[in-house]
């Protein structure tokens, strides 16, 4: 009975990230495959790479990209191959073409602006201290000339 339960449990479980049978015998090729798959998004998951994902389509994609690698494609060719079929949606690292330039350049530009504004504001500070208020002057007089 326990074993029946065990089998049922396992049947209900989904396929699961990178499977042992997917791994390529060539370690260098496999390392490249892992690098590529970490940068590709699972098309049906919410926010997972195909390397982490349990979805069947991710498994298909992992196997597909390994087939391309074995066939002799370069990393870029494999990525282009998948983007051509699934769109730029699968790229976890957006490219720098067109409007994406805004995404990449926004922070460095803002940093530069902030540094300039910060620098100018600090340099422009009045060199002298502000005058004491009347109350402070009174206190000071009282302390200095009791």
């Amino acid at each position, binding site marked *: 009975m*326990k*074993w029946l*339960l*065990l089998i*049922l*449990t*396992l049947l*209900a*479980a*989904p*396929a*699961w*990230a*990178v*499977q*042992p*049978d997917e*791994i390529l015998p060539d370690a260098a090729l496999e390392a490249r495959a892992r690098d590529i798959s*970490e*940068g590709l*998004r699972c098309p049906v*998951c*919410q*926010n*997972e*790479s195909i390397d*982490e994902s349990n979805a069947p389509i991710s498994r298909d994609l992992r196997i597909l990209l390994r087939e391309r690698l074995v066939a002799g494609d370069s990393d870029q060719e494999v990525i282009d191959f998948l983007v051509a079929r699934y*769109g*730029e*949606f*699968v*790229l*976890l*690292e*957006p490219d720098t073409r*067109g*409007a*994406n330039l805004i*995404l*990449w350049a*926004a*922070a460095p530009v*803002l*940093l530069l602006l*902030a*540094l300039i504004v*910060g620098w100018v504001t*600090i*340099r422009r*500070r*009045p*060199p*002298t*201290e*502000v005058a004491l208020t009347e109350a402070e002057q009174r206190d000071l007089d009282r302390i200095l000339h009791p």
Partner: protein
Amino acid sequence: MRYIRGMLIELAHFALILAFGVAIAQTIVPLVGAHKGWRGWMTFAEPAANSQLILVGFSFAVLTMAFVTSDFSVSLVYANSHTDKPMLYKVSGVWGNHEGSMLLWVLTLALFGASAAWFGGNLPATLKARVLAVQASISVAFYAFILFTSNPFARLVDAPLNGRDLNPLLQDPGLAFHPPFLYLGYVGLSITFSFAVAALIEGRVDAAWGRWVRPWTLAAWMFLTVGIALGSWWAYYELGWGGFWFWDPVENASFMPWLIAAALLHSAIVVEKRETLKSWTILLAILAFGFSLLGAFIVRSGVLTSVHAFANDPERGVYILLILGIFLGGSLTLYAARAGVMQAQGAFGTVSRESALVLNNILLAVSCFVVFIGTIWPLVAEMVFGRTLSVGPPFFDAAFTPFMVLLAIVLPLGSLLAWKRGTLTRARMPLLGLGVLSFAMAGLFYAIYAGRSMVGPAGVLLGVWVVGGAVVDLWLRAGRGGLPDRLGRITRLPRGDWGKTVAHAGMGVTIFGVAAMTAWQQEDIRIVQTGETFDVGAYTFTLDAVEAVEGPNYQSTMATVTAVRGDGAPMILQPEKRFYPVAQMPTTEAAIDNGILRDVYVVIGDPQANGGYAMRVYIKPFANWIWGGAILMAIGGIISLTDRRLRFAVGARDPKPDAKAVPAE
């Protein structure tokens, strides 16, 4: 008995409606009172804040009771609980869903409002009245949200016999306490927001304001730190591959307020000590809560899909967007109109603690902006440019990391500079020594892990630099003289200095942990037969057995794995795959042997056609340092909070004789 329980639930619903009414009155009456100078109207805020807390507290207690006693006549309990569930998860089920978590949200709002009333005894009467009124206005928005769109007390006519169970992923100690801490953080920032808006209405910001705001910011930041660390720790052991941060929209939602709160924490010090950077500090206070609201919107609207999002509902999203628009728009308009009034007083040189803190603020704020633009870019790209794209970890790693590296480099230097005009003359020798030590340590680690990426040694370099910088800071504060004199003085340093040291050291520890684990982890994926032995790194693993085990509300496949390093004592690891029949969901329970130098992390997978099981084994060096650093940061916050100078009552040292005294300038 059942009749009374049913009554209680209706009463709890009614109490919530009553709290809504009280909050409306608390928004209007004290504001009018403060404007007209009517003392009686101003003091109305205090009992109102207390009664809000009592009413919402009652509502929350009753909902908790409904979960604990499995009262399935409440539709929320039916949808999120089950009689077989362990008690801890019956209780945490209260906030493990949209409606209940919103009730926790308003409870926290009321709690902070009431605390501001209790601890604000020394605030000028008008400021106190306005702070409590603004705080109540936030509550009004969220009471309305709950009552009109997400009533947690909705009943079922025929109570079902049993519930549908809480999402099994949420049935975990790490995640049970993750939301309450996050909410204390998010909502804690509402108080600093209220202070900022009240100060804008008053038209004055002075050193005393900085001193009042700082403990609240510190507390909120500390809770956020703990909440984020708990969430990341949970992801590490629960999701099954030992990742600790995914740059998921929901994670980013909690990270953005954390970054801004950290900036605010530092700029409030400048306001308090030097009466400058005032309008910037006010802006940060507004933005910090703005990002909290944005976070609530991201989590609940589902416009940005995420692994974590629950109870997605566009209509609720629109409502939260409305709240965000009103509060952020309103406060920013007020800011634009009033910011000019706040002039800086203290002047400072280009090289000074003030300038260093400005740089800290720039780096934290811009890094927050990186996270922000990366999080919303898919939305913008689709709506404006018609491109469906993703922004994932590779972008954030590349765009965010440089800011943290810069921050880590300048942190020890800036924290050593004196106020007004500083030099590093006295610190030159210790800093030089520390620099040499940092490079030496990095070189040592480079040699140990020869041939691997440079990320690891860079992390060691920065980690030693930041932690060492904190120690040097403490050492230099001890003055001159022999070792006993110095040690004596170090122990007598104010708590605030200790808090600073511990928190900064925590940051260094986390940087090191993240870099070390990312760079040097080892992974092994293979099919293992029962009884088979294999090596990963310096360890030898044996799969001893795989058994079926019956849990309280799940069925488990549990493997027993023995791991030995050389001649050391064997470790027994029992990874599980669980199946929750009620929710029809499987979960992975990794087995982890925690250590100071490494974690051994084992996951059991599916049975294979030819017998045997898929197994994943990781050796994760210095993994615990990531959360250790976060804990140190939180402890630093606690130590600072206990500093006499920060006690809420200390502001009374120079009581304003007349609350309506001269405005700041």
